[in-house]
């Protein structure tokens, strides 16, 4: 059996190597390395894919969040609500801009922001909510948007892990992750579902005025060259990366299908094992399985056992944000966010990617089953 990896980007590349190599060669020939035509072409194609009016590309998914908050003119002291069970980038950007992160716990089954607690966190200083579509599945957007509307709060969807996931509203309307709030952000970090060959990111919006502002903010506050109207940053998607992404975007749905096939296998093989909870499927959202995350008993022992069997795993995330040293000064006690604290001790993400082999899936499932049944 082939060595099992958390992500097998190399094999994925080899399947489309001629196309990718061509795209790279084209950029090397044109030498339009910054804002070359591929950047705009990719932005257009991605806009069509997620069905949004404006796509602004940028340097990475963290910058995307920063640009979003700058363009919305959030001011130091403003409060921004975010789930406490997430990657550090979301909280860090809030802090970087002098805003105040207000953490909220997540649902134990979907791992996404607990909307039932949302209103209790809203104060007169609250300006925005940042739902994170964790592991590849949309947060409860319909109730979240209703609350946001009622309190006139911006919704910035962190779509770094869920590009392509689709949410169905109760009236039957379907929307892609990142296009439901005022702004959506995403990352093209290599191991993301749509990954480039370096850092990359993008921002979505349907608001034309805001789109202009986002574009300016990502480009030193310029509308026209050398006309700096506002304070901005430098955050661009390299032409080389855009060219690669343009090729890969065509395969994104196929990638999601392959990930879902692997997930379906795991679901079947692992359901019903005492001590193991398979990931919950939300009724309102498709899942693009950026991660396949189990909630298990004896997590650390399982991790060791799998490692010994040559099966890599990851813990997303082992230290809840409120216990990170960077936030220690805000002194959250044990039990502040019980679900997240429990998840940090019980979640384990097992290999899932576009190149999983049946025998690998079988071996991983079997090894887990054996661990809990013997």
């Amino acid at each position, binding site marked *: 059996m082939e060595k099992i990896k958390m992500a097998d*980007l*190399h094999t994925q*590349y080899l399947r489309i190597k001629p196309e*990718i*190599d061509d795209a*790279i*060669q084209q*950029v*090397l*020939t044109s*030498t339009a*390395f*910054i804002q070359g035509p591929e950047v705009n072409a990719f932005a257009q194609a991605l806009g069509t894919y997620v069905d949004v009016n404006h796509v602004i590309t940028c*340097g*990475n*998914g*963290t*910058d995307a969040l*920063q640009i979003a908050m700058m363009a919305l003119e959030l001011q*130091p002291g403003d409060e921004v609500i975010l789930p406490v069970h997430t990657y*550090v*980038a979301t*909280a*860090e*950007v809030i*802090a*970087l801009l*002098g805003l105040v992160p207000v953490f909220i716990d997540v649902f134990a089954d979907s791992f996404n922001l607990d909307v039932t607690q949302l209103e209790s966190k809203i104060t007169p200083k609250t300006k925005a909510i940042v739902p994170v579509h964790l592991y590849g599945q949309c947060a409860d957007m319909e109730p979240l948007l209703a609350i946001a509307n009622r309190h006139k709060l911006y919704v910035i969807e962190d779509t770094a892990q869920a590009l392509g996931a689709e949410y169905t509203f109760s009236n039957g309307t379907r929307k892609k992750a990142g296009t439901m709030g005022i702004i959506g952000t995403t990352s093209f*970090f*290599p191991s993301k579902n749509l990954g*480039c*060959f*370096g*850092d990359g990111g993008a921002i979505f919006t349907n608001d034309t005025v805001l789109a202009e502002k986002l574009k300016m903010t990502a480009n*030193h*506050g310029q509308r026209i060259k*050398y*006309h*700096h*109207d*506002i*304070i*901005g*940053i*430098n*955050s*661009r998607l*390299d*032409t*080389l*990366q855009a060219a690669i992404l343009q090729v890969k975007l065509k395969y994104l749905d196929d990638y999601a299908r392959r990930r879902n096939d692997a997930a379906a296998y795991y679901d079947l093989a692992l359901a019903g094992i005492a001590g193991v909870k398979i990931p919950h499927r939300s009724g309102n959202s498709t899942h693009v399985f950026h991660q396949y995350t189990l909630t298990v008993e004896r997590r650390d022992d399982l991790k060791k056992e799998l490692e010994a069997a040559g099966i890599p795993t990851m813990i997303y*995330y*082992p*230290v809840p944000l409120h216990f*990170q*040293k*960077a936030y220690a000064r805000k002194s959250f006690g044990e039990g502040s966010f019980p679900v997240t604290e429990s998840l940090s001790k019980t979640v384990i993400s097992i290999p899932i990617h576009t190149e999983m082999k049946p025998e690998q899936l079988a071996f991983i499932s079997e090894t887990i089953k054996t661990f809990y049944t013997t």
Partner: protein
Amino acid sequence: MEVLFNDLKKLHQSIPELNEVIQRTVSDFNFIRGKQVTQFEESFKAVLGVNHCVTTGNGTDALFIALRSLGINPGDEVITPAFSWISSSETISLCGAKPVFADVDSQTYTLDPDRIEEKITDRTKAIVAVHLYGQAAHLEILKKICDKHHLFLIEDCAQGHLTLEYGKYAGTVGEIGAFSFYPTKNLGAYGDAGCIVTNSDTLAEKARRFANHGALLKDDHLVEGMNSRMDTLQAAVLLAKLPHLKRWNEMRNLNAQLYDQLLDGIAEIILPLQRPDASHTFHLYVIRAQQRDELKRWLANYGIQTLVHYPQALPDLPAYHYLGHDKGAFPVAGMLAKEVLSLPVHPLLHLDAIQYVADRIRGFYKK
């Protein structure tokens, strides 16, 4: 004849191994913090003779990371030239601090040391010196001022790769030097890239942490930070180009000398001054010209690309209106904005092209 401002195609073709380097890096498939990143950091710091190099996503991020690593915070003031690319002031604002503009020297176009002390208050924390166009700022004097007033000195080296003052490389005199490897810089990547250099272990660690979400190791987020990395692919390109940098700088200097000779004696223009105690990378060869805009159009009609670095003094930009400066408060910067014109000076420029540009300039003022 068509004279391009930059010729990246020709530059790419002049290093045949670059295609292979890129193909090999793609095959390695280690796109984030691959070994080429560390190798570039090692090589670049060896060239400069400095203890640490920390790569970043671009030169603007490098400046921001430098400021944040030095602890520049809301309420602080940082002195920065009134004439530069906006990164050297916008990154100060991003820290929540106040950019305090100082006018530049009318001969070297870098910070005028005589205009600094009048700007220092008890909130002043640092000075950002820009090695504009490739000529070292008055580093030694600035360093003395900084030492006297307990200020940090940050060097913006985006245009000054390997430029020297009194035998010291730009970027190694202040606490931190910030570099850009934007594709058209003297050392340019094939996308955005940058780095900071420093001799301080503490600052290097702070910068490395800050640029990586506040963590040195996975999940060890000691402080809040950001995401600013040099792609492995860009590091590989820079590694392949670095050995050529000195030679390219020399070629730019030869081009500049030729311009100096050919443009000598035209009363309507002022040629760039080269300080005897400093070197110049001629990232840009910038003349000051009467009827600058007409000259620019005239040259364009002859197929000659020129650029204006920069058409406005920074304090005059709408982004800084909130500081409430009067127009004319920075007379040298204001004058430069009206007069400067950058002529093509890239390393692979043909001598005939330089002759052609010079002839057309002469022709413009004789007409």
